[in-house]
């Protein structure tokens, strides 16, 4: 490692956002022919650092050198000219254009799609991608779109690639494919940086890890010389345990029974097809599936937010009496006396109001209480103070708009509010997406506490490893259909992965 010259040298990089020090004199070297995993908790400045390398932000202080030559990166174009390409978490593609059109979009010179398609095929052959240059983006799966993004930066001649949480949206099989491609690119002498939270991926893929904490560079080391526990401790700054509890369910009783649920989206696409299952009290029902397989529609249908074409959703009281939830909006469900809490996927766009402060956000669920025409502001404020205290929310105060909080803290506020109403049913969608290890474990703990209190928890997750450790039963969705329901204890990741892509799993191979 020492005799290689660094492709990228970052020295003393500092970036402030107002009073927040996002990067504090960070040193980082990136080498060719190596996969570097950039690790750190939420808000530790990983993405900010990489955004400065790709020209999105400009550092307040510090120097960047490419191949030993000092450079100034003022814009993404400058970064491209230096061979730096970044694949963002949120894809930046035009849906109605084909892969090839997207790839050449914005490039100077004459538009020659045929030549472009040939060059794209060459790139694909070289590294083992599968891309049809003539396929429209809207016809593609998430993983295909990601491939287009990667090909796009390669097409532009990038040899320093940065991938921001690339596996967050992929199935295990797709992740394996991506890793194979990344290894091919590394062997071709490209420098690759991958930002991730998932320890097992770091161990499986990377050659070297660099760790940031609170905007500061903590250290880097060869992956082969370390382990998940040590890396986690360095990220967090103290020792943490990496086990998720799964207590046996206590006295499970049917709570929500879904029968033959069929849902179509506004444009008539079948999103859920004849879905039936039962969720029990005191139990965590995990829902697995590739993103967009109907998880969102399923939860929203139960919460009364999604018009349903067919089927029934019954809420079963402890005494066995049933109430139909379909056809009722959230207010009607609440007025029936059903205490249903929902932590939606889109935290700031649906679960919370980004511009309102913590106590006003606590009010969302409770503001109707009482007969006065005025709102009670004291109770929500107290609730906000309690949530901040109990869940260790990092915030300047309860009068701070929630958009100013980091992802993990936003989620703690949302989950804190939803469990404050002592629910009997708790729906969570991607409860730990984008959260660092510490926050994730806080959320798992909260969910387990609800389970112990007899709540029927429906947990939609994307990290199969976590689902397998946390859920009592796992319902696998595939293309809007139930592919199978397996017990969480003893379930195998590979089988569940196969069930996600194929109804009933792998019965032919």
């Amino acid at each position, binding site marked *: 490692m020492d005799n290689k010259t660094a492709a990228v040298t970052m020295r003393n990089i500092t970036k402030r*956002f107002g009073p927040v020090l996002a990067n504090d004199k960070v040193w980082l070297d990136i080498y060719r022919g190596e996969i570097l995993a950039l690790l750190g908790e939420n808000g530790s400045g990983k993405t900010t650092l990489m955004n400065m390398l790709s020209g999105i932000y400009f550092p307040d202080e510090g120097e960047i050198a490419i191949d030993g030559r000092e*450079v100034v990166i003022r814009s993404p174009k400058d970064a491209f000219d230096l061979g730096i390409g970044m694949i963002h978490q949120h894809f930046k593609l035009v849906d109605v254009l084909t892969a090839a059109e997207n790839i050449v979009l914005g490039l100077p010179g004459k538009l020659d799609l045929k030549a472009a398609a040939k060059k794209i095929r060459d790139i694909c052959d070289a590294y083992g991608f599968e891309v049809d240059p003539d396929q429209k983006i809207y016809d593609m799966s998430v993983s295909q779109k990601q491939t287009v993004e990667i090909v796009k930066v390669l097409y532009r001649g990038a040899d320093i690639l940065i991938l921001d949480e690339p596996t967050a949206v992929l199935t295990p099989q797709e992740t394996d494919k991506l890793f194979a491609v990344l290894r091919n690119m590394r062997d071709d002498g490209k420098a690759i940086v991958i930002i991730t939270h998932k320890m097992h991926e770091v161990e499986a893929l990377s050659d070297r890890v660099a760790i940031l904490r609170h905007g500061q560079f903590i250290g880097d080391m060869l992956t082969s010389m370390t382990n998940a526990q040590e890396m986690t401790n360095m990220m967090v700054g103290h020792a943490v345990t990496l086990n998720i509890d799964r207590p046996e369910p206590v006295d499970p009783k049917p709570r929500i029974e879904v029968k033959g649920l069929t849902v179509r989206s506004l444009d008539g696409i079948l999103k859920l097809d004849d879905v039936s299952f039962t969720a029990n009290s005191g139990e965590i029902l995990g829902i697995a599936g590739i993103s967009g397989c109907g998880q969102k529609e399923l939860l929203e249908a139960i919460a009364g937010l999604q018009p349903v074409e067919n089927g029934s959703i019954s809420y079963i009281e402890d005494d066995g009496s049933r109430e139909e939830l379909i056809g009722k909006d959230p207010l009607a469900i609440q007025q029936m006396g059903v205490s249903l809490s929902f932590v939606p996927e889109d935290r700031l766009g649906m*679960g919370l*109001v980004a511009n309102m402060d913590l106590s*006003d956000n606590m*009010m969302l669920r409770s503001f109707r209480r009482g007969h006065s025409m*005025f709102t009670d502001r004291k109770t929500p404020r107290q609730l906000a103070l309690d949530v901040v205290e109990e869940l260790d929310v990092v915030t300047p105060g309860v009068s701070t708009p929630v958009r100013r909080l980091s992802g993990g803290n936003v989620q703690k506020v949302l989950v804190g509010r939803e469990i404050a109403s002592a629910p009997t049913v708790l729906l969570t969608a991607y409860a730990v997406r984008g959260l660092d290890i510490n926050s994730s474990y806080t959320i798992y703990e909260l969910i387990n506490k609800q389970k112990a209190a007899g709540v029927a928890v429906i947990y939609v997750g994307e990290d199969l490893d976590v689902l397998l450790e946390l859920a009592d039963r796992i319902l696998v969705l595939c293309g809007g259909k139930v592919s199978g329901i397996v017990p969480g204890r003893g379930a195998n990741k590979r089988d569940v992965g196969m069930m996600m892509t194929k109804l009933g799993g792998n019965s032919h191979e």
Partner: protein
Amino acid sequence: MNNKTHTPLFHVSKRGALKWYQSWAIRGAALLLALVLCGLVTTWVTGEDPIAVYKSIWKGSFGSARRAWVLFQNIAMLLCVSLAITPAFRMRCWNLGGDGQMLIGGLATTACMILLAGKLPNWAIIVCMVVSSVLAGAVWAAIPAIFKAKWNTNETLFTLMMNYIATQLVAYYIIVWEVPKGAGKIGIINQATEAGWLPTIGSYKYLLNIIIVAILCVAMYVYLNYSKHGYEISVVGESERTARYVGIKVEKVIVRTMLLSGAVCGLAGMLLVGGTEHTLTTTITSGRGFTAVMVSWLAKFNPIWMIFTSFLLVFLERGAGQIATNFGLSASFADILTGIILFFIIGSEFFINYQINFRHTAGKEE
């Protein structure tokens, strides 16, 4: 080719939250700079002494008791319309139909004054005026609101178009009720009997309007910030999906809020016709429905701050008129000055949200 790249001269980055006095200092500095620039422009273009120009701007508003009363009346009317559109604006529903809603309220008032004069006692006429103007304004706003709630039409275009319909309706009824025939205008209504004229408090012609608007201002502040309705309005404005998620009926809130918005606009029309003008023309609103947009935005939709922003706008407008007469300058010159001042005030918001980092030249060799 010179391969050496340079650090850009400056780059812009977002600021953290400023303390309230820091942001007001920036705004104050912007106003000061604007006044200095206005002075320079005045001297350069007209050769007049800027201090004298500023003096006459001041005199335009506070030169005499009568001018001060007119100033406050104008502030009250502008504030009233601004208060009316603010609930809709907080809901991110851009009601640009303030003018039309005011006109239609004025038309309803005029109808009561002309048609009921002599048939009902004065107090009953006034009650009819209030009720009918509020209803007329509410209906005028409800039409676009219902279309928005049901079919998600664009309320900006819809309310704008409603303005034209209101203007044409008023033009029609002015001909119907014209006095004398062929004059093409209504003239002062019930000048002899003063039927339907709002009472004056003592000898202060404008005081009643000012008091009503002051009460309205406080009421609107409380409604928007402390009531359940006000909270629903904010949630719908910030995110309709969040509103649905917590069971707020978004359509209902849109229609209800626009009804309120139109009703207050209608009331403003009534105050204008019944309280001060005692006549109806198609231009009686003086475009206040649009100036109110600026008042409301500058105050960040806060009713109390709107007192200051409406003061500022009316003050500038009155002063502009004054220098036009005093120095024989065209009224457009006054508009230039108003433009410069508003440009600086609105521009200062950029410096409150962002800071500019200049290249470090000291201690670092290129």
